[in-house]
C-alpha cells in the first residue's frame, strides 16, 4: 500500500498527532505554526480524498487491516467528502486568521494549549465525519466536545466559564443519549459497523428497542446541533468564546452534528423508517419553523453582536432541519447545500467580528458606531457576508434559500415557503442594525481605530469571495449536494 491509500487515516492522524506536539512548546508562535501546517495539510488531503471519491466512488479504509464488522472501518462517501472539505477548509482559514486574535484574547501561557485543544477539536470533527463505525462516532464526538468545552472556557469574559459549564452539562447529556441509542441499535443488530447495521436493521425495525434507540439518538444529536428548543447552550457559548473559536465552532461543529444525524436517519434507519414510520419529519419541520421564527426574533433584540449571530445560527439550523424534514431529494439537498453555505457566511462573519474585537475590544452594537469609515474592509466583509445570510441574490445564501423554497413548493407547503422568506426579512433587520451602526453611527471622538491587520483580512475575504463565487457558480455546492443526497436516498429503500 502506498501512502496514497492511507489518506483517510491521515486526515484524522495529522491533527491528532500535531495536538500534543503543540502543547509541548512554551511559545505560542511555534504552536501556531505547527497547527497551521497541520490544518493546511489536512485540507490538502481532504481535497485529494474528494477527488478520489468523485472518480472512484466511496473510499473505505480498514483500521489496522481488520475486516469489518470486527474492525473499525472508515468510510467516506460523497456527502462525507463534502463535509470533510467544509471542516478542513474552515479550520485552515480560521487558524490562519487566529494568531493575533488569540494573542490578544488569551493569556500568553495558555496559547500553546489553546492550539492543542483546537487541533483536538478539529480531529474529533474530522473523525466524526469519516468514520463508518457507530461507536467511533461517539468517541470522536466526545473528543471534539471535551476540547470545545476547554476552548470556550478560554474566553476573556468570565461568563465564558459558566457558558462552557452549561455546554458541558448539556453536551454530555446529549452525548450519553447518543451512546444509549447506539447501545440499543447494537443490542438488536449485533454490529457497530454502520453499513452492516443498515443491512440488518429492516429485519428488526418493528421492535420497541429500535424505536427507543431512534428516539435517544435524535434527541442526543438534536442537542449537539442546537435544534430548537435544545439550543439553550449555544448562544452563550458562541458569544463568550474567543473569536476564533466562535468562528470555527459556528461554521463546523453544528454542521458535523447535522451530518451525523443525516447518516443515522437516512444511512442507517432509512427514509422510510425515520421519516415515515416515526413521525420525525413533522417534528423536524415544526421545530425548524419554530427555531427560525423565535431565534430570528430574539436575534433582532440582542445588543451583543456575537450573541446576535449565535441566535442567527440557531435559526439557520432551523432552515436545515426544515429541509431535512421535507424529506424529498430537493429538500435534503437544499439542507446539505445550506450546511456548506452557512459555514462560509458564518465563518466570515465571526472572523470579521474577531477583527473588530481585536481592534475595538468589544463587539457590542454601540462599539460599531462609525466603524464603516475606520475599518472599511472589515465592515464591507460583514456587509457582504450579511447579505449572504439574508439571501440577497448573487450570494451563496440565495442559492440555498432558492432550493429550500422550491422544496417546500414541490410538496405543496407554500406557507412554509413564506415563512422561510419572512425569516430572511428578519435577518435583514438584524444585519441592518449592525450596518446602520457601522455606516451611519458617529465614532466616539478621540478614539482612533485602525483597519484590521492584513493577516486577518485575507482569510476573511477568502470566505467572502467564496460567498460570492458560490452564489454565481454552483457546480460544486449544488452539484455535489444533489449527488450526495441522491446517493444517500438510493442507498436504502
Amino acid at each position, binding site marked *: 500500500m502506498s501512502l496514497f491509500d492511507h489518506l483517510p487515516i491521515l486526515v484524522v492522524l495529522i491533527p491528532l498527532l500535531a495536538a500534543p506536539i503543540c502543547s509541548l512548546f512554551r511559545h505560542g508562535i511555534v504552536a501556531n505554526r505547527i497547527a497551521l501546517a497541520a490544518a493546511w495539510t489536512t485540507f490538502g488531503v481532504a481535497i485529494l480524498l474528494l477527488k478520489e471519491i468523485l472518480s472512484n466512488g466511496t473510499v473505505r479504509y480498514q483500521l489496522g487491516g481488520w475486516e469489518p464488522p470486527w474492525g473499525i472501518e472508515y468510510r467516506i462517501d460523497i456527502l462525507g467528502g463534502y463535509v470533510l472539505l467544509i471542516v478542513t477548509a474552515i479550520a485552515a482559514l480560521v487558524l490562519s486568521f487566529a494568531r493575533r486574535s488569540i494573542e490578544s484574547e488569551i493569556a500568553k501561557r495558555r496559547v500553546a494549549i489553546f492550539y492543542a485543544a483546537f487541533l483536538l477539536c478539529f480531529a474529533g470533527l474530522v473523525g466524526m465525519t469519516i468514520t463508518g463505525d457507530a461507536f467511533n462516532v461517539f468517541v470522536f464526538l466526545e473528543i471534539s466536545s471535551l476540547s470545545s468545552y476547554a476552548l470556550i472556557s478560554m474566553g476573556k469574559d468570565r461568563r465564558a466559564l459558566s457558558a462552557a459549564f452549561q455546554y458541558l452539562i448539556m453536551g454530555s447529556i446529549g452525548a450519553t443519549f447518543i451512546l444509549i441509542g447506539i447501545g440499543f441499535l447494537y443490542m438488536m443488530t449485533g454490529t457497530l459497523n454502520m453499513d452492516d447495521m443498515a443491512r440488518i436493521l429492516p429485519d428488526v425495525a418493528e421492535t420497541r428497542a429500535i424505536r427507543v434507540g431512534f428516539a435517544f439518538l435524535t434527541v442526543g444529536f438534536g442537542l449537539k446541533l442546537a435544534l430548537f428548543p435544545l439550543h439553550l447552550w449555544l448562544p452563550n457559548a458562541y458569544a463568550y468564546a474567543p473569536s476564533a473559536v466562535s468562528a470555527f465552532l459556528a461554521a463546523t461543529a453544528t454542521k458535523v452534528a447535522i451530518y451525523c444525524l443525516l447518516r443515522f436517519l437516512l444511512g442507517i434507519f432509512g427514509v422510510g423508517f425515520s421519516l415515515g414510520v416515526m413521525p420525525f419529519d413533522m417534528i423536524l419541520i415544526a421545530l425548524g419553523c419554530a427555531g427560525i421564527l423565535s431565534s430570528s426574533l430574539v436575534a433582532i433584540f440582542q445588543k451583543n453582536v456575537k450573541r446576535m449571530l449565535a441566535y442567527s445560527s440557531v435559526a439557520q439550523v432551523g432552515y436545515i432541519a426544515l429541509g431535512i424534514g421535507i424529506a424529498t431529494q430537493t429538500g435534503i439537498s437544499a439542507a446539505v447545500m445550506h450546511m456548506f453555505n452557512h459555514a462560509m457566511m458564518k465563518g466570515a462573519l465571526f472572523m470579521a467580528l474577531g477583527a473588530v474585537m481585536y481592534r475595538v475590544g468589544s463587539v457590542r452594537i454601540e462599539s460599531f458606531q462609525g466603524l464603516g469609515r475606520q475599518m472599511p474592509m472589515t465592515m464591507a466583509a460583514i456587509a457582504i457576508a450579511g447579505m449572504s445570510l439574508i439571501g440577497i441574490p448573487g450570494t451563496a445564501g440565495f442559492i440555498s434559500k*432558492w432550493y429550500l423554497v422550491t422544496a417546500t413548493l414541490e410538496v405543496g407547503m*407554500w406557507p412554509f415557503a413564506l415563512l422561510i*422568506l419572512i425569516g430572511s426579512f428578519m435577518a435583514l*433587520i438584524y444585519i441592518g442594525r449592525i450596518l446602520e451602526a457601522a455606516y*451611519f453611527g458617529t465614532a466616539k471622538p478621540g478614539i482612533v481605530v485602525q483597519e484590521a491587520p492584513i493577516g486577518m483580512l485575507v482569510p476573511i475575504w477568502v470566505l467572502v469571495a467564496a460567498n460570492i463565487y458560490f*452564489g454565481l457558480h*454552483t457546480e460544486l455546492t449544488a452539484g455535489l449536494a444533489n449527488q450526495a443526497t441522491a446517493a444517500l436516498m438510493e442507498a436504502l429503500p
Partner: protein
Amino acid sequence: MSPDTLLMWMLLLPLFCAVGIVLARRNANLRDGVSVVFGIALFTVVALLANKFSWDSAPVWVLAEPIPGLALKLSPEPLGLLFALIASFLWPITATYAVGYMRGHGETNQTRFFACFALSIFATLGIAMAANMLTLFVFYELLTLATFPLVTHAGTAEAKRSGRIYLGILMGTSVAFLLLATIWTYHVTGTLDFTRGGIFPAGTDKAMMSVLLLLFVFGTGKAALMPFHRWLPAAMVAPTPVSALLHAVAVVKAGVFTLMKVAVYIFGIDTVAELNSAQFLSYLAAFTILAASIIAMSKDNLKARLAYSTVSQLAYITLGAMIGTTAGVVGGSMHIAMHAFGKITLFFCAGAILVASHRTKVSDLSGLGRRMPFTMAAFTIGALSIIGLPPTGGTWSKWMLVQGTLDASQWVLLSVLLISSLLNIAYLLVIPMRGFFGNVKDCEHDHGATTGINEAPLPCLFAIGMTSVGCILLFFYPDGLHALAQEVAK
C-alpha cells in the same frame, strides 16, 4: 458594432463610470464631467441597439448560471429598450443638473453620491435588459441597495429613519412575495424566460395564477401600489436629483416596468384579462390613483406633493397592465416615458426653487413666478404633461389608457381616470398659477434680494429646459415611442 457588443457596453459603461468617478475624486470638475460623458455615450449605445432591434436577432448575454437551467442573462426586447432609452437619456441631463444642484446646495460626500448614482443606473439597465425573472430580481435588489446610500445621503436622524422604511418595504416585499412568486412560477412552468404570450402552459389552474399575480404585484414594492407606497414619500429626504431621476424615473419605473413584464411576458395579456385577481388589482390601482391624489392635495411640502403624485401616476401604469387589453399595455408603456419626462421636470423645478430661494412649501411659492419665470414656465409644462393636456406628451398615454378601459368596458375605471385628471389640475396646476398671479409672500429664507430675477444655477436651467422641451416634442412626435409600445403588445 454588433448588437452583442452594444448590449455588453450598455452594462459596462455605467459600471466603468462609477469606477471613473471614484478615481477622479480629487478633481471635482473632472469627476462631474465623467458622469455626463459616460451618460451621453450610454444613450448613444442604447439608441443604436434600439435602432437595430428585431425579435429574430436579439443578442443574448449570459452572465452566469447559478442554478442549472436558469442563467443570469440579458437580452433586449421593446419594453426594456423603451425603459433603457428613457433612463439613459435622462441620466446625463440629471448629471448636469446635479452638478449645479449639489454645488449650489453645498452638499458633502459628492463622490459617493455620483458613484452610487452611476451604480443605480447600472442596476436599472440590468432590470431593463433582463431576459428572465431571476436576472430581473437580482438587479432589482441591486438597485435597492445602490440607491440606499443616496436616500440616506444627508446622514441625519430623519434620513436614517427614512432609509429604514425604504429598505424595509422594498426589501421586505421583494424577498417575501416577489421571490416566492418567482420560485413558485419556476416550479410550475420550469422556466422564467420572458416569452411573448406568457410562459404558463394552457390549462394551468386559474386560482393559483391569481394568487401568483397578487404575489408578483405586491412583491414589486417599487411600483408603490397602496398599501406598499410609504417608502416613496420617505425617500424624498434624498437630494433632489435623486428624487428626480431615481424616484420619478429609474426606481419607480423599474417597479411598474417589472409589473408590465410580468403581465405581458410571464402571464400574457390575454391570460391577465381572465384572472380574478387582476380585476381586484385594477380596482386597487384605481383606489391608489384617487387616494394618492387626495393626499397630494393636502401636502404643503412641494416634494411630498410630487411624491404622492408619483404614487398616483404609477397606479395608472399598474392599471394599464392589469386590465388586460392591448391599448392598456400600450398606454401603460407610453406612460412610463411620458410620466418620466413630466415628473423629472417638476422635480428639477422643485430643486431649482430650493437652491435659488430656499423654499420647500407650496404656500411659500406665491409670486415666485416673477422671480423665477423660466422655472415656473417649465413647471407648468411638466404639470400639463402629468395632467395629460396638449401640447404635452402626457396626452397620448392618457388617451391610450382611456382607450384601454373602454375596450375592457370598465366604466368605473374610466371615470376614475377622468376624475383623477381633474384632481391633478387641482394639486399641480395651482402651483404655477399662484406663482405667477399670487402676491409675493415674504419668507424668512429670503436674504436681501426679493425683487428681480433670481434663477437657479445654469446647469440646472439647462436640464430643466431639456426635459420640458422633451415633454412638448413628445406631443408632436410620439410615433417612435408608440411603435415601440405597439411592439410590446404584439
